[in-house]
């Protein structure tokens, strides 16, 4: 493994070639299994419920826009998308700020108990977050935070911190000491170094942890289910769930609502695919 960095550049120069027909056949089959159900939902949203009942696997004939229009104009879709957005952004901001501050100390300061503090945070990776949901609800209730954005944001920040610190710390440790020395000679203290040098330099890592926190928050269901009883505060996952049980006979409407709820995640994924995939891979590689 040690020779890997030396040898690997040659792989980059190899031109991509066409694979065998078997390779493509298998790859296409796998892609179909991954994508077909999603396409079915999106296309199904363009059919009417009687069409779907008569021929579950058919194509729209004719294509109807009514389901999508109905969902967008009459349901709480926009309100829920807004709530999801506020909570996801709040979570991301909290995770990035708190995680960066803690990881900076753990990476660039030498003090007694540093490794203990790091271990203390990493234990959170082993912690089954779901198990604590009932007492968490009770605590938020006692703090009168139920039915507020904070009830979702604060615990989500807390649960995302261990992963964030594990990703950020090695990144910050890797900043050469010469840069810190140079900053000190220019009169910047450690905080100046954090703000003016470490922060800009760690942008790629910050984007990664930010994207991971955003996606986790956007998709979250259990915590919002318990702490957001107020319908006006419902996030999209709660909205999809309640719309599908409330209008269970309106299959076409449910399909339309579900695909609209998927759309932001799919868009976001195509935009931030590198960060999501790279972040997950990096986090696990250590």
């Amino acid at each position: 493994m040690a020779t890997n960095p030396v040898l690997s550049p040659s792989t980059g120069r190899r031109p991509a070639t066409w694979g065998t027909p078997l390779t493509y056949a298998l790859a296409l089959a796998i892609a179909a299994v991954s994508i077909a159900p999603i396409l079915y939902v999106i296309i199904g949203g363009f059919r009417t419920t009687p069409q779907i009942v008569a021929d579950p696997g058919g194509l729209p004939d004719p294509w109807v826009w009514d389901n999508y229009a109905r969902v967008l104009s009459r349901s709480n879709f926009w309100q829920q998308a807004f709530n999801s957005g506020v909570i996801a952004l709040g979570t991301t901001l909290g995770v990035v700020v708190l995680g960066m501050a803690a990881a900076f100390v753990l990476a660039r300061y030498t003090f007694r108990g540093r490794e203990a503090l790091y271990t203390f945070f990493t234990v959170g990776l082993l912690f089954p977050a779901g198990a604590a949901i009932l007492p968490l609800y009770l605590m938020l209730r006692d703090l009168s935070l139920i039915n507020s954005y904070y009830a979702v944001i604060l615990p989500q920040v807390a649960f995302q911190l261990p992963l964030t610190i594990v990703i950020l710390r090695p990144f910050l440790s890797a900043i050469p000491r010469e840069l810190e020395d140079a900053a000190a000679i220019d009169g910047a203290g450690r905080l100046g170094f954090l703000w003016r040098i470490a922060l800009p330099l760690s942008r790629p890592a910050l984007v990664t942890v930010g994207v991971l926190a955003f996606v986790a928050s956007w998709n979250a269901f259990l915590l919002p289910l318990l702490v957001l009883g107020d319908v006006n505060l419902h996030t999209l996952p709660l909205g999809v769930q309640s719309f599908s049980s409330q209008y269970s006979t309106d299959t076409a409407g449910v399909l339309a609502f579900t695909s609209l709820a998927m759309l932001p995640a799919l868009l976001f994924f195509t935009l931030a695919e590198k960060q999501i995939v790279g972040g997950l891979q990096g986090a696990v590689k250590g």
Partner: protein
Amino acid sequence: MTSTDQTRFPAGGVSTPPAGHRPAGRPSSRRAETRRKWYEIVGLTTPAIVVYVMFVLVPMGFAVYYSLYRWRGVGPPTDYVGLRNYTLAFQDPIFLDALRNNAIIVFGSLLIQGPVALGIALLLNRRFRGRAVFRLLVFVPYVLAEVTVGIMWKLILVENGTFDALLKSLGLGGLVQAWLADLDVVIWTLLFVLTWKYVGFAIILLLAGLSNVPHELTEAAAIDGASWWQTQRHVTLPLLGPTIRIWAFLSMIGSLQVFDVIWVTSVPAVRSLGASGTMATYMVDNGFFARLWGYGNAVAVILFVISFVAALLFQRFILRRDIEGAITRRAN
């Protein structure tokens, strides 16, 4: 990792004052500098520590406390029942069913997703035009919200729905089941949905592992006359060990706590009969919705202990080498 004490900077030769705002040459400046360092350490870490302790660690402590009471969640708990909630849980056949379902999901995920993901990752690791697109498509299900995935499959698997129509059109009409209503079938249906949702995660990790396998090794094997299969089996697979073990760990922890997909996809009636519920859905059903807070918290503690012990055992016996390697490699 920085090994030198940063307060000692700047040391040799340079006569500029320490990196502070006030130039101070007196001996007391050293102590002031140390104090400043501690202010910074405390100031920067306190918010993270407070949030982390308050919302991750403290609730679990409260769970242990509440679990010793019979309590409907109103006012302070007073009806102390000792460990009775725990014994009740292990006497409830629905909870034992939940344990069994969790076991099916843990082992089913490992045994199905592992080989499937490995096969797909090996395929997508071959060099061919358009590979990047396939890699992207395979990963899409993982990014969708669990709830969306659950509703989606619920609609597809509904009786006389699309999936059944597809089977019939393939001449496999005899296989049609009440996928989500048959008490003997539903857990396997859910396992399928979970596999569809999470196999992309395993693939992405394995592809990362595969990209670390030097091309020269597989080429050398090929030159020595090894077939593609022999190369994968004897060269690539052993080098993937750490990646596979870390994926198995994450998969196990996730499977023990699984809630969203189960909750959304299977109807409460089926769940309440024990056919599809997991520890987490059982906990939320009883604790939150039935307002048996003491009992629900006991289930939470059981779920916590099982997950934590599983995690520690895995960590201790299977992961240790990998993690030590990863940390030292990264730090240097």
